[in-house]
């Protein structure tokens, strides 16, 4: 069961690029890395998912090194509305338990 470790909180400024790193040292071969975003009073929302190297969509990029023991979520040019909690998950087998952890509380300053 792959556990994840991420910073409790981060601050950044509008217009900056924000990188949030997640450690998952015991990730299994068939595990995927998934990131969710949660705004106050809302349910989590899927952002991006990847297996290796780099994945990019309209919202973010996900960088995964060759050993897959960590991953970095990159948010380009953040705005105040990106203030949220970001969760890193590692999920693979059908019987895997789904652990969200405590997430990273990102606070964007003007």
């Amino acid at each position, binding site marked *: 069961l792959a556990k994840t470790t991420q910073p409790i909180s981060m601050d950044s400024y509008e217009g900056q690029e924000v990188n949030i790193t997640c450690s998952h040292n015991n990730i299994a071969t068939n595990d995927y890395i998934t990131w969710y975003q949660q705004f106050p009073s809302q349910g989590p929302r899927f952002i991006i998912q990847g297996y290796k190297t780099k994945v990019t969509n309209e919202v973010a990029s996900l960088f995964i090194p060759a050993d897959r023991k960590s991953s970095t979520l990159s948010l380009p040019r953040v705005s105040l509305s990106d203030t949220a909690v970001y969760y890193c998950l590692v999920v693979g087998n059908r019987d895997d338990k*789904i652990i969200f952890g405590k997430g990273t509380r990102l606070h964007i300053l003007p």
Partner: protein
Amino acid sequence: DTAVSQTPKYLVTQMGNDKSIKCEQNLGHDTMYWYKQDSKKFLKIMFSYNNKELIINETVPNRFSPKSPDKAHLNLHINSLELGDSAVYFCASSQFDRVGYEQYFGPGTRLTVT
């Protein structure tokens, strides 16, 4: 056009009462979940159903009983409510055969037990 909906959005009740929260998804997914998010914002999975069959049942008091009448619905019934049950409950759905299955969450039900 809501993908995952929950009712009610807010629920205030007294200790000892029995209450239900309903969840429906119109995404055609075959798997549904219930999560509890407490005051410390820690999000914990409670149950998961795949095609109406229970597949994940975390350490949850047996006062909590999920019911899945069909694969588009997963209701949560709570008996003898306690103060510690106060939390936000989220329903979610996914397509189980997709690896790393992306989950779609409902808006949450804020339960307050007094």
